[in-house]
């Protein structure tokens, strides 16, 4: 089942990538990133299973923590941007431009 799990992981990850590429809603892009992280988590779990070791699962916990932190900060940014632009459309948001 390891191969299947890795297959699912890859497909989910790519769906996340494609989502990031085709969506313009900042919140949905965030969700895509969460999907990608979770897909990677699946790989971790599968490989931990393969090696019969729990270390991979520990890493999954770390990834989840970071994902939670990222979601918190990211959503706060989205809120403050929305206040400014009245929009979460990425086309309107080019603050990175120097």
């Amino acid at each position, binding site marked *: 089942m390891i191969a299947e799990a890795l297959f699912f992981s890859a497909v989910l990850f790519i769906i996340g990538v494609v989502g990031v590429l085709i969506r313009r809603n900042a919140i949905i892009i965030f969700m895509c990133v969460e999907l990608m992280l979770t897909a990677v988590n699946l790989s971790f779990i599968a490989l931990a299973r393969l090696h019969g070791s729990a270390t991979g699962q520990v890493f999954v916990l770390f990834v989840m923590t970071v994902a939670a932190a990222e979601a918190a900060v990211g959503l706060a940014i989205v809120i403050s941007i929305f206040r400014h632009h009245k929009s979460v459309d990425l086309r309107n*948001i*080019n603050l*990175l431009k120097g």
Partner: protein
Amino acid sequence: MLQELAAVDTHPLAETAARFVGLLPLLPLAGFLVNGALSLASSYKRGPADPSAAGAHDGTAAEQVAAHGSDHDAVARHPYAAITSVVGTLMPALSFALAIAIFLAMVSAGDFSTPYVRSYFDWMVTGDLQIRWAFQLDQLSMVMVLVITGVGTLIHIFSIGYMRDDPGYPRFFAYLNLFVAFMLVLVLGASYPVMFVGWEGVGLCSYLLIGYWYNVKSNADAGLKAFIVNRIGDVGFLMAMFMIFANLHTLDITAVNAAAPSLGFNSALVTTICLFLFMGCVGKSAQLPLYVWLPDAMAGPTPVSALIHAATMVTAGVYLIARSSALFVMSPAACITVAVVGTLTALFAATIGLKQWDIKKVLAYSTISQLGYMFMGVGVGAYAAGMFHLITHAFFKALLFLGSGSVIFAMHRAYHHTGNHDDAQDMRNMGGLRKYMPWTFALMWIATLAIAGVPPFSGFFSKDGILGAVFERAQHGTLAEATWLGMPGSAVLYALYGLGLLTALLTAIYMTRLMLYTFHGPNRTGEAERAQLREAPWSMTGPLVVLGVLSAVGGWLDLPATLPLGPVGLLDKWLEPVVGAATATAAGVVGEGVTSTEYVLIAVAVAIAVLGIVIALVRLRPAALLPKRDALPEHGIEKLLENKYYIDELYDDAIVTPLVSGSRNILWKGIDRGIIDSFFVNGSAALSRGVGWVGSQFQSGETGAYAWAIAIGALAVLGAFTFR
């Protein structure tokens, strides 16, 4: 290499003073370092006052104006003058003492045919190229070492007086010491590259010393001219080295000489190598067509002219040919070329010397002419004769230069006292100096008789040796049998002999002219100045006396068999192990003893010399000569001669001007500004700007675009892993 080292240990010179050969150049080098440090220290203390021409004692009129204008009071001597005088002259003197010790060791070691090579360290070692920093002592380099250190020491002593009040005193001695060090490296180098270091080093010192009073532009220009013209020749030397290495796989002089026959007799290859070597000599030794720098080099202080541009450096070319004798005898064509160029230079320069008014210019053209004689000698394979003339010329030409320096010193001092701004070097301003400078007068007459070839002075023997050798080679030997540019070698050599005699006649005329105008006739300096004319101090006259003695008796170094006034052919026998084989190859059949022809030749030579002096005495009227400011312009051939055949102007028009305008119009405006600036420089700027613009389009600030970039980048990285 082990064998060579063993050979060095068992060499007859191994346990003698010769093992200190490395000290020979190191001593003057130490002098250079000390004096250079003093010079720097004093300029640090007093500010950059050093190059000022104040107190300078010769040079151009403009320079003297500067000298009188800026500093009319008594000039204070340099604060470090005492220590500089001691160190600056002691170091070459010690070197000379060591050279004497080594010479005595060589004499007592008797005959040895292999040179004593002392290697110090590996210098360039890459693949086939194995160059060690090694010095080579043999009879030939010993002769040069003695001349350089001996005459050099005398000239150093002379400089103490001559440069007495110069503000750059330590700098002058530093350069002079450095020159001696490099010159010794040149003659001692055991391989062509080591020699080349000395070769370039003396060129550097020559440049530095010609432009010694560099605040006058013409002096600095003269230095540059010498440097640049010499570089043209050096290309030839380098090419020769490359070709030697490419074909013989070594650059050690001994090895090259041993392997020279493998290049093939009269092959195009050996001729090319020899001609390239000779190209180097033409530059360094001021032969046609690269002689133009030497007359300008007289802008330097007179001791420099004596040491570098008469006695030692300019003879390096002669030494180089004698060194490479084994190569040159393989190529009769190259040998005849050397002799032809030498003879033509000798004649050409002698004619110019006939109408020069600057006392140093006369001597400069005379030097070029005498160098031509030396090349005539080594060209026809009479290496000992060429070297003999080199030695005697070092004596009498150094004497002439130092004597002229003494005259200029006196003239300048007289002008300095009276505030006169006339040219202290122009013979038209001199005249009748014999009353005021009897020692200089007498000694310079000795040198004049020597250079003119009047027996029993030294120049007679050496010049006769060369002319005799040319005549003999015209009769038999490889050169006589060869053809040169379609002409039989024999005929060419006979013609050279005739031109050599003509040159000897001209030499006698222009030298007598110099003496007449300088020392005889009425004095043309003026009343006030006349009172100030007097003999130079003994520190200057002393070296003159020594050189006078050497000029008088130097001929005994190598007496011809025809005139057995003492031991015959000392120098011949001494140089036999080095150049004997080459000389024998060139000579072919050895002549059978003394013949009546040789007596006829000697008689002709003497008659020519005396005839020249007589012509000058009869034809020239020093009494009718006007001072320079009143002189009338010359006409016809005299004007041509006075303007040196307009060769400088010709070079300017034919080479310099096209070069400059070509550089300006094609290289600068066309290539530099048109192609390099607009295409490469501005083009690369535009390219950067374009790339930057493209890059800036990626920096849109739109995260979507960044996400795409990341995705495509990840795709590429994964692809790289996939298709590895």
